[in-house]
């Protein structure tokens, strides 16, 4: 567990949403957190620099930007795992790919601005690997609290 100073803790725990849409948002958000405008800007800069925040700003909803995303999984024979990972990752539409502990051991997210590309990418991967791709599109998304507490 990395050491988290009080300013970082206040920013991470208090500012995972609700950043003001006002001309001086760091000043306005700082009032709530007990930080000055300068302290908040420096604190965010430090957290981003240290990689503890991926970034600071809007979290865009990929699907609403006109594109589509789809989770998919393959049961890859262990001896072919690295070869198949290379074939899958070569597609620029693959945003994430994880090895997971299950018979379905490769899980990846296909993301495309043109939704028709999703089915095409699945067909391409099936042809290239000779393995079945199990598409797991989201049918319903439930509201999440999304907060990580440090």
């Amino acid at each position: 567990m990395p050491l988290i100073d009080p300013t970082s803790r206040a920013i991470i725990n208090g500012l995972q949403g609700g950043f003001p849409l006002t001309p001086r948002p760091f000043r306005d958000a700082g009032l709530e957190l007990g930080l000055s405008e300068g302290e908040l800007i420096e604190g965010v800069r430090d957290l981003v620099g240290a990689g503890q925040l991926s970034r600071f700003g809007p979290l865009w909803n990929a699907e609403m930007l006109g594109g589509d995303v789809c989770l998919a999984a393959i049961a890859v024979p262990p001896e072919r795992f690295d070869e198949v990972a290379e074939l899958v990752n070569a597609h620029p539409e693959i945003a994430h790919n994880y090895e997971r502990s299950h018979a379905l051991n490769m899980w990846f997210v296909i993301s495309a601005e043109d939704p028709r590309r999703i089915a095409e990418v699945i067909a391409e991967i099936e042809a290239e690997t000779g393995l079945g791709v199990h598409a797991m599109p989201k049918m319903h998304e439930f509201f999440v609290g999304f907060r990580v507490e440090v």
Partner: protein
Amino acid sequence: MLDAVDRRIVAATQAGLPLVREPYRAIAEKLGLDEADVIARLKRLLGEGAIRRIGAIPNHYALGFTANGMSVWDVADDAVAGIGAKIGALDEVTHCYERPRHLPLWPYNLFAMVHGHTRDEVRAKVERIARLIGPAARAHDVLFSTRILKKTGLRIAA
């Protein structure tokens, strides 16, 4: 739906806001827009759900949440909405979706991503969720990621 100006704002902010006193003015100047227009558009996009939220986007891994478990549940189709709403509201769940089953290999129709400092912590959280759902969960499992094979951010062209 996003117009061309919205898309330029997406492209200008997807790596984050400028960390300056007047970030919206800085974006407006870069794009040749009015600050008030940028703020109004961001407000609308937030209201429409094109922006999920604005603020700190934590890197779970760098914050010590090095274990992530994809908990998966087989619940009756007519119960999934109620159960999904209940477990999605838990602080430890960062994503919660209904997805199709792939029988017989994959009987699970509800996915909830659970983060923790250790796998044991994730397992304990999953067991708490199991008690919360009760007998309505006919089966469940938790899949840990053992390797990141690829990870890229959202990339949208202007």
